[in-house]
Every structure is written in structure tokens, then in C-alpha cells.
């Protein structure tokens, strides 16, 4: 059985001591990091801190030095995200920190993608995501994006306050077959319908499936405005995205 002193990275040792309370979980985490070489521990530490530039750089360096992608994932990225998950569950960190860590994970995974592709693991599909015009509430959208990326989609995030023209431009540029719009305010919800109308006017409505979501949005509202689907949360968003793209199971 490994001991915490077997872990070389001080920050990782501190994180385990301070935040992992359940004995089994603690031992499992110690066992993982005790086996991880220092480079992997450094990737995990940067990910836990939400430092996407550092994760990006260290992941690149690790792969360039000949370390296997599986090792980078197991002992760097996934191991780091495991600690993030525990800290979040125990309310030591909150949604903004988790989103920062997820962005750091994405920075590392960007270097793994060519390896996935070479092995025949292709992205499920490409999705354009944005919060509609006039709306600056983006947490729901960001959680959907995190979940979509984590499930194997390529996501282009247009951010907040996205005009219909910006959505159209993005679909034309990327040829994405799927678009997701979110709104939190009842006053901005109609802009979802306006965006769908803009796609009809641009003769692009048949090129893209449109899904919508957000606290005040309902299935009825989605149907009325002519969306292809409605997702009530991030998990539903992924299921809907797969469904709209005709993905049955990923294998």
C-alpha cells in the first residue's frame, strides 16, 4: 500500500491531506499518484488549479518526450479531474472553479485528440453553442459545453449575447450539423425564435438541427418556435445532441 510521502509533488500531497476525507477514496488517490511520475503529477496539479496554459504546455512536453497518451490521461488529466470532482462534491470548490478546471482539461485533451483520431476514435460531431442576443447568463451553457466536450463532441462556443448573424456565420464556417441556444430570461427567450427565423431566411434551416435550453424554456416553447429539441439540463443536452445526430451508442 502506498503512502502519501511516496507522492513527490507537494501540492498534490496537500490537496489529498486537506480535501480527501473518505479513507478508501484517499488511499485510492494516494495509490494513483504514488505511481505517477513527477511530470504527470505536475499536469494534475495545474489542472486542479485551473491553469489551462500550464496544462497545455506540460501535456505537449510529456507527449513529445515519449510518454504514452494513456499515461497522460490516467495519471495526469483524469487523476487531476478526480480530485476536482471530490473537492466539488464536498463543497470546497464551486461551479466557477470546476469550469476553469474543465477548460484546463480541454487544453490537455487537445494534444490527445490527434492520437484518438489516429486510433480511430473520432469526435461524435460538431456543435455550435451560444447564449442568445441580449442574454449574459452563461453558466447553463458552459455546463452543457463541458458535458458535450466530455462526451466526445467538438464544441464552438460563441459566448453570450450572440446575434442570429453570429450563429449563422458560425454554422456556415464550421458546417456544424448542430446548434444549441440558451436563454435564462423570459425577455430574451423570443430571440431563440428570431434566430431560428433567421436560419429559415438564410435558407440554412435544413442544414442544421437546433436545440434549445435554459431555465424558463419548456418543451412546448421549443416546439412553438420550431426548435428540433429541448434539453432541461446538461445531461439532457448531451442525450439530445446524440439523438439529433442519430448517434445510438459510442463504441
Amino acid at each position, binding site marked *: 500500500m502506498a503512502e502519501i510521502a511516496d507522492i513527490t509533488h507537494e501540492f498534490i500531497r496537500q490537496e489529498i491531506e486537506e480535501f480527501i476525507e473518505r479513507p478508501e477514496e484517499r488511499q485510492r488517490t494516494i495509490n494513483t499518484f504514488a505511481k505517477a511520475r513527477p511530470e504527470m503529477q505536475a499536469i494534475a496539479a495545474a489542472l486542479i488549479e485551473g491553469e489551462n496554459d500550464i496544462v497545455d504546455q506540460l501535456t505537449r512536453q510529456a507527449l513529445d518526450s515519449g510518454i504514452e497518451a*494513456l499515461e497522460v490521461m490516467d495519471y495526469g488529466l483524469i487523476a487531476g479531474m*478526480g480530485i476536482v470532482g471530490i473537492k466539488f462534491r464536498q463543497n470546497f470548490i464551486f461551479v*466557477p472553479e470546476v469550469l476553469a478546471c474543465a477548460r484546463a482539461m480541454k487544453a490537455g485533451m487537445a494534444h490527445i485528440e490527434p492520437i*484518438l483520431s489516429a*486510433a480511430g*476514435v473520432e469526435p461524435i460531431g460538431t456543435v455550435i453553442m451560444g447564449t442568445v442576443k441580449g442574454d449574459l447568463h452563461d*453558466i447553463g451553457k458552459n455546463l452543457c459545453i463541458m*458535458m458535450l466536450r*466530455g462526451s466526445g463532441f467538438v464544441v464552438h462556443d460563441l459566448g453570450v449575447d450572440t446575434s442570429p448573424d453570429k450563429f449563422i456565420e458560425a454554422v456556415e464556417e464550421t458546417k456544424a450539423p448542430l446548434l444549441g441556444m440558451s436563454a435564462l430570461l423570459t425577455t430574451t427567450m423570443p430571440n431563440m425564435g428570431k434566430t431560428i427565423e433567421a436560419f429559415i431566411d438564410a435558407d440554412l434551416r435544413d442544414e442544421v438541427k437546433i436545440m434549445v435550453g435554459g431555465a424558463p424554456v419548456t418543451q412546448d416553447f421549443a416546439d412553438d418556435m420550431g426548435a428540433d429539441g429541448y434539453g432541461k439540463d*446538461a445531461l439532457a443536452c448531451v442525450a439530445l445532441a446524440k439523438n439529433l445526430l442519430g448517434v445510438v451508442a459510442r463504441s
Partner: protein
Amino acid sequence: MPTKEELQQRLDQISELFASLVTHADHQSLYRCPYKNRLDQCTAQFGCRNKRKPRAHGELPICAGDDKLDYRPAWE
């Protein structure tokens, strides 16, 4: 070179990890504003009546929400 199956297994693991994160985020946002970080600062780009002056220049505004009442009516 890792096999497709080995890589897929890791991706499934990541997907599961993220699923548990968003499930907890949904639960937590019932009582705590999701824009409020661990330092009780507001990360929202929009106005909120719970926003207070930052502790120091260049820092994010402080969130004065107490996590006891529904925070959403304070959003502007």
C-alpha cells in the same frame, strides 16, 4: 500506440466524471448561486443586486448573497 478500446475506455471515464460534476452543479445551484466562486466573489458578467465592491482593486466583486434565500430574483 494505444488501442481504440483503451482510449475509448478513458473517454468514457471522463464522460462519467463530468456527468457527476454537472449533476452536483444542478443540485448545488438550488441553494448557491452558480456564479459565486469559492472566495465568495461574483463571476457573472451581468448585473446582480448581491454584487458588492471588490476587496481590492482588480479583484472580482464580492457576492453578498447568503445562500438562504433564492438568489435568482437579484439577477438583472
